[in-house]
């Protein structure tokens, strides 16, 4: 087990390094310079390049990035409020935590509502409630986040005026409702579908029949016996969910005007603010990779049938 975890951690760090290299290469593949404006002369650009170390060979620059990141120094911004440290830009004013809060709430909602819905559908297989849930979840995984977010915005904020149009930095419960629903709806539906399928699988297993024959009550049967086994595919899905929620947060943050990390990522790309691009990519990628790591380890703990030697299948 320990060997497996160590192996996975090493692989995760390698992936993160790879992403840093890819990002660095992509950033430098863009022709032009971040200091190129209409007014700038070649001398000014050269001076600015020298100041920020952009005149050094690419490999040296990449090495410097990695060295500084290991020290916890994310560099300084080239564009946004020139000279501010990237750490302040990302973590200052609660931007990072705003995104995290939104993402975690959406994730928790998707799991806490999706799994019971899947159980209900599986248990009532073939009845009207199963049919209804099936229609909702099937449509739910086909509606893009931005369509749902905008429709919610128009209906509840503009027409009915029940909820605020600008969620800002999520000051109240009301401001959470729409961003969280639009962010988590897709995953909620997907988790419900996934739970239903694996639950149906589990219900038809021999050990369930045995338990039923022994007189275990239905509710206990579902919660204690069937659910445990049917959770495995749901747990594996949580890794992609994390990546998807980060993607979705770009859309949701721009639709509901939330000053989160997603907005800065896109802005920094458009600005060609190298250190900010690098830092946001690394932070977001680290989140996803960390989630994948947790999921992989949890997966092996939950399902003892899987060998712990690290070989798949």
């Amino acid at each position, binding site marked *: 087990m320990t060997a497996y975890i160590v192996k996975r951690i090493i*692989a995760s760090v390698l992936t993160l390094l790879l992403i840093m290299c890819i990002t660095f290469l*992509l950033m430098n593949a863009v022709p032009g310079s971040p200091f190129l404006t209409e007014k700038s002369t070649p001398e000014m650009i050269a001076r600015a390049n020298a100041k920020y170390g952009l005149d050094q060979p690419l490999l040296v620059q990449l090495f410097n990035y990695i060295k500084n990141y290991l020290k916890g120094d994310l560099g300084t911004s080239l564009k946004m409020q020139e000279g501010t440290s990237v750490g302040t830009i990302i973590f200052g004013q609660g931007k990072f935590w705003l995104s995290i809060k939104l993402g975690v709430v959406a994730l928790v909602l998707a799991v806490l509502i999706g799994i019971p819905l899947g159980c209900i559908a599986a248990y009532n297989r073939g009845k009207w409630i199963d049919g209804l849930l099936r229609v909702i979840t099937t449509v739910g995984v086909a509606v*893009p986040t*931005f369509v749902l977010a905008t429709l919610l915005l128009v209906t509840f904020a503009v027409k009915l005026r029940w909820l605020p149009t600008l969620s800002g930095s999520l000051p109240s419960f009301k401001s959470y409702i729409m961003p969280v629903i639009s962010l988590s709806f897709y995953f909620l539906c997907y988790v419900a579908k996934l739970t239903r*399928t694996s639950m149906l699988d589990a219900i038809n297993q021999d050990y369930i029949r045995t338990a039923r024959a022994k007189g275990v009550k239905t509710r206990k049967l579902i919660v204690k016996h069937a659910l445990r086994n049917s959770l495995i595919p749901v747990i594996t899905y949580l890794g992609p969910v994390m990546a998807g929620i980060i993607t979705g947060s770009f859309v949701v943050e721009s639709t509901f005007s939330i000053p989160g990390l997603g907005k800065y*990522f*896109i802005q920094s*790309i458009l600005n060609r603010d190298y250190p900010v691009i690098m830092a946001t990519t690394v932070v977001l990628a680290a989140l996803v990779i960390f989630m994948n790591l947790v999921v992989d380890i949890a997966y092996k703990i939950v399902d003892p049938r899987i060998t712990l030697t690290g070989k798949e299948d």
Partner: protein
Amino acid sequence: MNGRFSKFSPFHVDPEKIEKTFSLTAEDFVPANDEEKAAMEEKHKSVSYWRDAWRRFRSNTVSMVALVIFIICLLFAFLGPALIPYSYDDQYRTSQKMGPFEYSKGEELIKSIADSCDGFYATALRAGSITALNKGNYFIKDKGKIYAFTLDGALEKSVIVLRRDDKDPLIIVKEDDIKNGSWSKYEAISYTDTAAEDAMKLELSTGVFPHVFGTDSAGRDLMARTMYGTRVSIIIGVMAAIIVLIIGATYGAISGLSGGKVDFVMMRIVELIYSIPEVLVVLLLQVVLKDPLTEWFSSSSSGFVKAMSSLGSGIISIFITFALLYWVTMARIVRGQVLQLKQQEYVTAATALGASNGRIIRRHLLPNCVGSVVITTCLQIPSAIFLESFLSFLGLGVSAPMASLGSLCSDALETIQLYPYRLIFPGIVLTIVILTLNLIGDGLRDSLDPRLKK
């Protein structure tokens, strides 16, 4: 008592019948001729894999309905633009910001003209850009009659109207007159009942085509834009799926067939790519590739590059991203299948019988893989459409005036409070396309791989 063995019971045996059955003559020992031999053979028509799958798919009501709706979407996207008189990039000054089925002032007047006349001609049936005719001979055919006329000078911004009375049937209404709110000021032009030589034919229209989905702020017809957007989105989805199919299937097959160290290394690479958060890389690529691609488009003159450039740099980078990152799922699935199939007894038997590697791949591995490959490819299409619409929504996908469903939604966002229908129409079409493709994919899974059916 004896009822159980009565004459009608299946256990009753007629002694005469037994004698008949067992009495043999010499004729019974004549060897069977070819005809008789042929009659002995099983006459079941062999059902091919695809026919069998189609039979199963047809019996799946949900998937069939989805297929029909998807075909309607395809017609909407690929035939629709030919049927409506508007184009995705024509801007009409006088009909901006109109709701569904609304008419601008000029259009209303033309409509009233159309209602009181047999027909009228205009290149585009709108008041803003009515018609421009060079000088020359023209004829209009209507109800068996030919109205020919000569234009002494070029004609600009007018509508030629064909009236019901035979006296002065051809009149011209000028744009200025339409704008003034009356169309009665007209000048008759000379006409005959025979076609003039070398005449250009004019087509008659009988009505103003409505803006079914309304128009946007630049006066572009939203239905035409939605049709083009659907077309672009579907093309992107299919192209991306094909790219994923080619790269993923080849990679997975090589990895699965080689096995051993090659397989190990190839799968570690797949795992590494799999754990990269794709969207971050997509976004980076979008921005990075924009300038070089635009440069490439303008510098090269080959037909292929021209075709690519009409799609825009955003879409090309989407394809590149798919080629770089999204094939891993396909590769994993194909590898898994190949590994599993390789150990099947019939493959061992084929090897033992001396079949070559090529024959084993062609006859045994490919036909058995094809089901899951088709399913994965089909489900890749909606995910590509999802990604494209997401990028276009963030303003990184297709570039104006080209439209995709995502960019239409994104355009609508600015004026969402006043004109919500601008988002609703493309949003609904987008949802329907993704939904039907998902359902078709599910149906394919059930029919191509019945073992998986739950």
